[in-house]
């Protein structure tokens, strides 16, 4: 009996130790290394590498891309969840599958597809260059690639929430005299606000950190078509290790902020989901 209990607790300690080691090795250590390397030549060097005009340009590019891609996917996520959650229609399952497509395709392939479509020898490339539109190796292409890759994040979070909550509240609002937009702004949107915020956080983290797809379509013109993650690679590739890690530390900070925000939202979201379930069982 005692031996059994001791065996159990020994097993437990072993498992916990393995899990902790794993966390330290794969999560904590890299994070420490990033900041240690970034600050290896002191704070002055750290800030001067961030103040570098090329890095500044990369920060701006990253912010602009996220500022377009996240709202675009927010709008799309709301529209898609509205359609899928509320209506039965032909092609509903196809739409759900399509939303998942970016998850199952390698981002590099996604970038390549875009080059094939909009590139100089691409399907639409001739027309675009004739009208002087530059998409590939320019900001529009990078935004498109990011939107594609981050496409599922908001929709995937919100669709199950909408399905779970049903549309009785909307029906109630209709009978109380509300019109479409009143229902949308006052009932439907507040109902899914935490799920929406959660999706936006994940979408934003991915939009700012995306490498593969953006790398293919950017052309990597340092100081022009460079995002933070692309800058890390090019700096590291040109043996500016400290500067590369300084830029990487910005992305790491973003990850930490996202993590805290995510945990906060999850707290409210769980409350809300529990409330939904309680309501159902009454």
């Amino acid at each position, binding site marked *: 009996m005692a031996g059994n209990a001791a065996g159990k607790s020994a097993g437990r300690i072993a498992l916990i130790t393995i899990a902790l080691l794993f966390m330290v090795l794969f999560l904590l250590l890299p994070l420490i290394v990033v900041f240690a390397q970034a600050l290896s030549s002191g704070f002055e060097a750290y800030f001067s590498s961030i103040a570098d005009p090329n890095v500044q340009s990369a920060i701006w590019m990253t912010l602009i891309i996220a500022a377009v891609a996240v709202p675009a996917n927010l709008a799309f996520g709301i529209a898609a969840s509205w359609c899928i959650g509320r209506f039965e229609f032909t092609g509903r399952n196809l739409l759900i599958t399509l939303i998942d497509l970016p998850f199952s395709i390698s981002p590099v392939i996604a970038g390549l597809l875009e080059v094939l479509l909009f590139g100089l020898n691409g399907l639409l490339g001739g027309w675009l260059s004739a009208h002087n539109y530059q998409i590939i190796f320019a900001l529009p292409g990078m935004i498109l690639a990011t939107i594609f890759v981050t496409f599922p994040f908001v929709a995937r979070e919100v669709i199950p929430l909408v399905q779970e909550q049903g549309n009785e509240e909307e029906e109630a609002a209709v009978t109380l005299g*509300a019109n479409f937009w009143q229902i949308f702004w006052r009932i439907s949107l507040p*109902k899914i*606000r935490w799920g929406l915020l959660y999706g936006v956080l994940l979408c934003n983290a991915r939009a700012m950190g995306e490498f593969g797809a953006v790398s293919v379509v950017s052309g990597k013109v340092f100081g022009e078509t460079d995002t933070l993650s692309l800058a890390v690679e090019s700096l590291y590739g040109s043996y500016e290790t400290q500067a590369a890690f300084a830029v990487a530390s910005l992305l790491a900070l973003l990850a930490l902020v996202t993590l805290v925000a995510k945990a906060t939202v999850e707290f409210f979201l769980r409350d809300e989901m529990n409330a939904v379930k309680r309501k159902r069982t009454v």
Partner: protein
Amino acid sequence: MSTEITISNVSRGFNGHTVLDNVNLTVRDGELLALLGPSGSGKTTLLRLIAGLDQPDSGSIAIGGTEATQAHPAARGVGFVFQHYALFRHMNVFENIAFPLRIRKTPKAEVNVKVTELLKLIQLETLAGRYPAQLSGGQRQRVALARALASQPRVLLLDEPFGALDAVVRRDLRRWLRQLHEEMHITTIFVTHDQEEAFDLADRIVIMNGGKICQQGAPIDIYQHPADVFVHEFLGESNHITGHAAGGIIFADAGFPVAEAANAPDGPAEIYVRPHHVLLRPRSNGGTGWVINRISATGAHARISVANASTTLEASMTVDALLASGLTDHMPVDITFAGGTVFPTADSQPLKLQVLKPRLAV
């Protein structure tokens, strides 16, 4: 202004399955009407059609003399209380009730006055700041009702209003709703599958089955004169005896005579007798083999199971009457049927109602 509701030849199907089949119904101004039926009888679908949450495949609906079949729900002046209340989970009680006023751009001061009034009406003044998740079922139901009343509807529609509540809350809320109706006189339709609820609350009951209206009338009339076998079986317990009529007397197929029914045509007959119409007394002499199986007293009423060689019947009486009668378990008894209904089935003619006259003890 009259708010009579006229439903004419309304049909509705879902995926090829008919849910409402050519329904005609008039709801009178100020009436409290119950739509009673088993689940799947189409009663909730009918309620949703009246509210405008769904459209009929054919037929028309008029509210207060105005054609409303295609009208937007908001234009019908209808308040709807959902079975699961459908309170806005992100708004507190006050804001839930204020919602219909706010979307009509009612001035703030007026909103405060009206909501406070309604909170007083539902006796929840102290819980104005609570969220729906923090309320009990009965409280949510009352908030849903206040919210529906806030838009000052001409017609109030309630879908299984007490379905999700426990017995005591249900009874209290029922009385409260009846009282409210007597004060406000809003034309009210409620859907229920609970016959006790319908009988207790409604001025008039409409019984539905299989997408059709079987019978409508005052509760007491329906109970006394059920139109068909379904209504009889649905409204409370009954003993079903297959038998036949011969020379103005109804016999059970098991052999014993049941009652006189002078105008019953000779031939097969379905006999329905309510338990309280089965009268028992200790056997005098001779006897026909009826013996009490078991007596179970629950509160004021006792149920008695009585059987002979071929048939088991349920009888019921008050516990006081039981004690006075001296009946006990396994006692041989005589039976009289004090009433009942026979549905002749000969010649497959339409089912016809006949009230049985009591006959001598069997």
